[in-house]
């Protein structure tokens, strides 16, 4: 992203479930000047909620001493959102990405988090290491692809 025209924010907060709503509002408020319609803004709030919830439930297994980090950047072309934890990591990423796959059915998890992130964003990448943590990088384009091809 072009340096001069880029805006950024980084957010670090306690891995407590009551901060999930705060995280969504903070990201939405940061992006409020962008030409996103209401549905696109809702999609972004949803994927933030998915990744933050995963960090809290799976990454830290609800240990509130953990911290979740969100970094967001934008310029005129795209929004990039990175959500990280220093939790347990994911053993099998391919399996984790499958729709309906969950390791916590006893918590009534739906196993749809990664599927939603993939569908609502243009890019969704998972970087993870056992015992070190997980990093989800997502991008939403602001410009239609056809326009970039001109």
């Amino acid at each position, binding site marked *: 992203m072009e340096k001069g025209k880029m805006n950024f924010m980084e957010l670090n907060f306690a891995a407590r479930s*009551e901060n999930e709503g705060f995280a969504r509002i903070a990201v939405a408020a940061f992006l409020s000047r962008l030409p996103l319609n209401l*549905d696109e803004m809702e*999609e972004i709030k*949803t994927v933030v909620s*998915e990744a933050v919830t995963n960090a809290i439930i799976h990454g830290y297994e609800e240990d509130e001493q953990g911290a979740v980090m969100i970094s967001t950047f934008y310029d005129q072309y795209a929004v990039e959102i990175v959500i990280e934890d220093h939790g347990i990591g994911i053993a099998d990423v391919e399996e984790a990405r499958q729709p309906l796959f969950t390791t916590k059915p006893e918590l009534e*998890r*739906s196993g749809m988090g990664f599927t*939603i992130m993939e569908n*609502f964003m243009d890019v969704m990448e998972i970087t993870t290491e056992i015992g070190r943590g997980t990093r989800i990088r997502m991008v939403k384009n602001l410009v239609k692809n056809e326009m970039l091809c001109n």
Partner: protein
Amino acid sequence: MSLRVDMEAIGDILIVRLDGELDHHTSEVLRSQMEGQINDTDVRHVLLSLKNLHFMDSSGLGVILGRYKQITARGGDMIVCSINPVIYRLFELSGLFKIIKVKDSEEEALHILGVA
């Protein structure tokens, strides 16, 4: 950042109206309230109205699927109504529409359940 759960019984139908945001943090409240109501009363069907639900993520799908299993195990049915476009896509992606009926309004849903 909070959820209000409003429950009303009409005959053997439990109408559950959600107002606010349904995420991991608030889904626990919904689960325990609905679970209790289904277990302790002779409710047969559930009508879930999402008209005033402004936000939902996959934690919501999980708690809804859990209550669907609970009510169908008792021979009942679940209908969801008044879903906004983004939440609609969550249901679609998860395949929940293959098992849970969806209607535009409470009236239509009650009609299907044989009331009004």
